[in-house]
């Protein structure tokens, strides 16, 4: 008999297993992490990324994964000479790793952006900022999704 784990898409199998165990995060979850790292690499075109300057502002405990308030801020001027050009947000365990890419310019005045995001489960988020000098900076956060009991079916 064929072992489905060897043949099915590994990510799908992991997601199904995690679901079957009712929200438990089990098994080697690095498949998702690898997807996120690949998406970051595509965004930076392989340039080195330094931790710092960027701050993800999100509650460590989120009541409902359908809508988590998230703010991003980069500690950097926003002037014609030096500014934040792009900020990309990535996640580890949603069906796809991209969340949003914000494009800024000196007219933006600051690099503070607020939005609301979906998080399928407890996981890490990464924000990567590209500055006008071509350097890349990052922040990472773990967000825990609390489990709701009474849900609509």
């Amino acid at each position, binding site marked *: 008999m064929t072992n489905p784990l060897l043949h099915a898409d590994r990510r799908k199998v992991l997601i199904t297993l995690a679901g079957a165990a009712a929200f438990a995060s089990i098994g080697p979850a690095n498949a998702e992490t690898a997807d996120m790292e690949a998406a970051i690499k595509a965004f930076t075109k392989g340039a080195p990324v330094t931790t710092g300057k960027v701050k993800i502002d999100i509650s460590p405990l989120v009541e409902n994964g*359908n*809508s*988590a308030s998230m703010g991003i801020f980069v500690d950097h001027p926003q002037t014609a000479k030096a500014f934040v050009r792009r900020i990309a947000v990535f*996640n580890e365990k*949603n*069906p*796809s790793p*991209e*969340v*949003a*890419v*914000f*494009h*800024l*310019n000196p*007219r*933006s*005045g*600051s690099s*503070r*952006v*607020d*939005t*609301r*995001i*979906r*998080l399928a489960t407890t996981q890490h988020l990464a924000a990567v900022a590209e500055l006008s000098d071509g350097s890349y900076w990052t922040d990472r956060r773990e967000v825990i999704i609390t489990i709701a009991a009474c849900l609509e079916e």
Partner: protein
Amino acid sequence: MAKALLKVPKTAKKGEVITLSAMFSHQMETGHRRDADGQAVPRDIISLFTCNYDGAEVFRADLFPAISAYPLMSFTTVATVSGPIIFTWTDEKGKTWTEMAEIAVEG
């Protein structure tokens, strides 16, 4: 449903950094949900949001299904001149919706 809710200051001083917020009436369907009859709900998302003011784009966002329903964008710009601030949402089929708000800039 009303299509958008904007929050734009009515007045600002020239050079002041102001916060703008725009919420749009859209489900941001991921394509991963099923309806009550078990049928897959097709993916339907706003994939692009832009804000134009005083002849230039001041903010742009590429959006993915991980953005919540009723997408909310809050960001800043520098008050330069009196006039309209224009917000545009585009879905993956290329359909666009535009809303605007006037600002009066003093000094």
